[in-house]
């Protein structure tokens, strides 16, 4: 398939591409930090979308792969001296392996049971890492300042990490699109709509949903490594924030689940919203409640999310808003 000829691919790809490019051209540190957060959430939400939007398995524990993959990648940098790009790949691979193991246990569950099990997985992962000495237990790990030397100092390393993140998020978009338009992706949507019927029609649901889970888990592992490397440290409370898992999920719903553009728009919109809320005295301490409320409102009134709503309202735009 020639990606450059696909009207459903361009808007999403360009949006992410330009967001990164602007930062590289303007070269401001604060802008870079903001963009890092937004791009990170786009990557996390889009990868969650592969399991949740395409396959219909609502995962409240997506952050586990960010946390565990990120921890492992960070460990490879700080303790083993790996360059960050290889370490990030290591983090991604570990996340996929974990997804395979976790999937064998929980992918047999459907609907609300699956969703509930994923909440448990998040708490279990935090408890495990807090007591795992090689990962520094409850204090976590720090990167030695000399690790930044090979990138030309700490300042350069931050820019380098940003570029890596940008490339990873572009890769998430490309992979998401390819999956969506493939035969495999058609099988995933069949599973989402009615798993038993999909199987009667020949879709190997146990295998295909495991594959979807592996792909979905790979990218948070990469992104987690880059995020913790940028911060210079990693600790359990930072790596397994249930709040963040919920926010990623809200972003997918806000933009439109199952759509390539959905999580991107959702991440931008939610970050904007968060900006307003953080400056408001009332909402500052009601962070979790606010994301819960936003989720409730979307599910009740715009189940297709913003992009889904646009698709319905303007059928002519559909081919661009995939």
């Amino acid at each position, binding site marked *: 398939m020639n990606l450059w000829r696909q009207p459903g691919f361009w808007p999403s790809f360009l949006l992410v591409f330009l967001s990164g490019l602007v930062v590289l051209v303007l070269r401001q540190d604060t802008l870079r930090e903001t963009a890092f957060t937004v791009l990170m959430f786009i990557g996390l939400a889009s990868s969650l979308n592969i399991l949740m939007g395409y396959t219909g398995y609502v995962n409240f524990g997506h952050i586990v792969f960010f946390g565990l993959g990120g921890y492992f990648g960070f460990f490879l940098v700080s303790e083993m001296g790996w360059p960050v790009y290889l370490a990030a790949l290591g983090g991604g691979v570990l996340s996929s392996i974990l997804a395979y193991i976790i999937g064998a246990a929980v992918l047999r569950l459907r609907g609300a049971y699956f969703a509930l099990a994923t909440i448990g997985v998040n708490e279990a992962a935090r408890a495990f890492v807090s007591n795992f000495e090689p990962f520094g237990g409850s204090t976590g790990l720090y990167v030695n300042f000399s690790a930044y030397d090979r990138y030309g100092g700490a300042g350069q390393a931050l820019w380098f990490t940003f570029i890596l993140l940008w490339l990873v998020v572009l890769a998430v978009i490309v992979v998401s699109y390819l999956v969506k338009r493939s*035969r495999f992706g058609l099988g995933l949507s069949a599973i989402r709509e*009615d798993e038993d019927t999909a*199987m*009667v029609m*020949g*879709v190997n*649901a146990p295998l295909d949903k495991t594959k979807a889970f592996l792909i979905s888990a790979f990218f948070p592992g990469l992104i987690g490594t880059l995020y913790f490397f940028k911060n210079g440290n990693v600790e359990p409370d930072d790596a397994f924030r249930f709040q963040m898992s919920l926010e990623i999920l809200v972003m997918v719903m806000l933009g439109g689940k199952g759509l390539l553009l959905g999580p991107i728009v959702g991440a931008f919109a939610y970050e904007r919203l968060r900006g307003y809320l953080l400056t408001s005295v009332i909402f500052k301490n009601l962070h979790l409640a606010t994301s819960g409320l936003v989720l409730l409102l979307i599910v009740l009134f715009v189940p297709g999310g913003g992009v889904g709503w646009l698709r319905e309202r303007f059928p002519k735009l559909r081919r661009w808003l995939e």
Partner: protein
Amino acid sequence: MILQVQEVSKRFGGLQALLDVNFELAEGQIMGLIGPNGAGKTTLFNVINGVYPPTEGQVIFRGEKITGLPSYEVARRGLARAHQVVRPLNDLTVRENVMVGACFGRERHSRSSAASLADQALTQVGLIDRADQFALSLNVAQKKRLELARALAARPYLLLLDEVLAGLNPSEIAGMMETIRTIRDQGFTILMIEHIMQAVMSISDQIIVLDYGQLIAGGNPQEVANNPKVIEAYLGDPEMTARLLAE
């Protein structure tokens, strides 16, 4: 023989849904499966296509034992099914629904060749005008046709049709019968469950009758219609008896 069902039994807890069912189906034939409500007809389909395994017995498809294989493995071997209770993939278009059949059925087509196969199947069942609509928007008769198109697009060796005429009005029934006849003429082997006697009698080469989970009769339509056991089985259902005797 394309399908051999040997000594198949199925229990659900205390309920014996199927008991020692034996029959064979030859290639190119249409076999009707009739019997009162709750006789176990749909259960027999579920056992044949691997929705669940039989408690006892064997299912042999094209010489291969498929007992206990998961349904997607059975589908790949060339067995497709239209459900009694329609199960469209609601959030997909009608065309995409049918493409799933072509992509994951016996021939495992790529997405692009599946699209043209889907259009063929949709033309055949008279649903091509709706190809770009969401499956959710179809009415019951159209959903039944969609079930049929999905099964056809899989290019199966054997088609299982579970009451595709149920819930249709007389003119829709006539249309659907016409479609099934053209499918038969293309050489598909069909096993069909049907309540509408006239339809089954006129279209089937062979008929088997299930009652309380057991096969009580089998043969060509004439033989079955005149079999006292069959008439007796339907006696609890006056409407059915009338239909049967009217034949």
